[in-house]
């Protein structure tokens, strides 16, 4: 509890100092703002446009929040930082990470789900003759061993192949092994690597989407701790309201959103960021994202993800989805924020 106490003290001091400064500048509403932070799973880029837009457009402020957006990196994960109290919210990439984290004692709860479809797809060279997962037999498939491998195995299984029929190898940032044909099939996220391939002028590739082969799971959950949810529900609600509204605005005004993101980080290229935002938006508005609304916590989707993990033995059978997911906050988001414009 000592860490928690320390965090609270530090936060109180920070907000007190902040309040004094703002007060000196003549702002009155600043006194009411709650300080919270959100940890992204990667560096600042258009993949997280909604959060930066919500901050820039004052959507968080109108919910009574002062939000700090903390970028991630290759060697930190938001799950640990939220569980330890260093950050209040995080974007967790996969349902596996959420469930695995809970199983290991991290008190994390998903309160919204940004992507209604998994962003991972597989690519093959057209001249290889590979068109569907059934063609993977005897081939080498590379994928990210940070959760995506479970989806690849599920696709292989759905195609009626045994795990040994396909050689699955880890993949890192570079697409070079695929381009040099060291692997037959590679994984891409549709908002980054696929665009990189397109930008490099690569033609003649087949995109194999897991959702077309019975592997359709949601992704990119917003998580908070059980404690935050119990003790500061208004803050959680405010953060979700502001974030969803930010995303709605970002998708409706992509150029402005990209500009806002570019101001937050140095060294980004606008065309790539715009393509990223477009691809990300497509996944957000897929299926339930349009029918129910942006950020919906589609329980059926979460259950599908759990079933894949169960069959792969990644989570224990007694994993409790009701503890891992709290759909109540999303349901309370004003519907004018959740409808894609």
């Amino acid at each position, binding site marked *: 509890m000592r*860490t928690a106490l320390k965090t609270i003290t530090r936060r109180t001091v920070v907000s007190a100092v902040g309040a004094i400064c703002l007060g000196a500048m003549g702002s009155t509403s600043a006194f009411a703002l709650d300080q919270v932070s959100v940890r992204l799973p990667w560096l600042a880029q258009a993949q997280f446009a909604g959060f930066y837009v919500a901050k820039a457009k004052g959507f968080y402020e109108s919910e009574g929040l002062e939000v700090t957006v903390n970028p991630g990196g290759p060697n*930190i994960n938001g799950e*640990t930082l939220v569980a330890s109290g260093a950050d209040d919210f995080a974007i967790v990439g996969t349902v596996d990470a959420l469930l695995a984290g809970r199983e*290991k004692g991290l008190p994390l709860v998903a309160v919204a789900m940004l992507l209604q479809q998994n962003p991972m797809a597989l690519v093959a060279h057209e001249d290889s003759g590979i068109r569907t997962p059934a063609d993977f037999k005897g081939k080498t498939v590379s994928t990210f061993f940070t959760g995506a491998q479970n989806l690849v195995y599920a696709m292989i299984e759905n195609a009626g192949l045994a795990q040994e029929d396909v050689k699955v190898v880890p993949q890192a*940032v570079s697409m070079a*092994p695929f381009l040099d044909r060291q692997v037959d099939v590679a994984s891409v996220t549709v908002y980054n690597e696929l665009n990189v391939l397109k930008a490099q002028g690569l033609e003649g590739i087949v995109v194999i989407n897991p959702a077309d082969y019975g592997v359709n799971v949601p992704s990119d959950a917003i998580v908070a701790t059980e404690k935050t949810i119990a003790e500061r529900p208004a803050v959680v609600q405010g953060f979700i309201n502001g974030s969803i509204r930010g995303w709605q605005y970002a998708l409706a005004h992509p150029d402005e959103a990209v500009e806002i993101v570019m101001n937050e980080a140095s060294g980004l290229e606008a065309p790539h960021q715009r393509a990223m935002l477009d691809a990300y938006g497509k996944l957000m508005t897929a299926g339930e994202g349009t029918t129910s609304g942006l950020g919906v916590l589609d329980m059926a989707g979460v259950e599908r993800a759990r079933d894949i993990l169960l069959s792969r033995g990644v989570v224990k059978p007694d994993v409790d989805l009701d503890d891992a997911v709290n759909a109540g906050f999303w349901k309370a988001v004003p519907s004018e924020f959740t409808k894609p414009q």
Partner: protein
Amino acid sequence: MIARASYPLLGLLIIAAIWEGSIRFFDIPPFVLPPLGQIAERIWTGRSEMIAGLSATLYEAGTGYVIGVAIGLLLAIAVSLSSLAERSVMPLFIAINSVPIVAYVPVSFVAFGLGAASKIAMVALTVGFTVFLSAVQGLKSVDPSAVNLLRSFGAGQMRIIWMFSLPAAMPIIVSGLRVSIVRAMIVAIVAEMLGAYDGLGRIIYEATQQVDFLRTWAAIAVASLASLVIYGVFVWCDRRLVWWK
């Protein structure tokens, strides 16, 4: 001998005490800093994975180390043969060396792939430069009047280097070799964290991303203990043999 070996153990004990103490004092949850007992247990239950990872990392670090030492020493000898050569290439070498090694890692991936070759190249680069710079410094510090004396007796340049300069430069070269051991391991692991098929660095990265904190710490502990043991063996051999004196 026993007394000497006991001091590193004492060091380990101090670290263990700080570790366990801060868990209790700061009330750190296990997913941030797990107790040492749990890490040890995780190493044991995951021993086949840890051994496989360790051998991959050791192979990369070891091969890179040997290549780096060979290239570094040969270059240093070549450069010390002529002061013109030294003046000509040193600025370029220093510029290449002053780029942090991590900056080369992405390029190495594209050039050599994600397998062992890219890590071996990175380790060889780091070790090579460390050894090169210390060997150049060592060869320079040789007493010039002694070299002149040998030359006046008709000794050839290669012979002087081999029989006299190199042995005299050994203390500095050996300290370069020693520093390189730990760095070779770290460079291999960091490169693996950014992209690899195998090795402890890959375990660390994947486990971190999948919130498997005990696995992360187990791999870190194995990496750290392994470098410590290799370092210890090197120092022991160095003290024991002193073959260059």
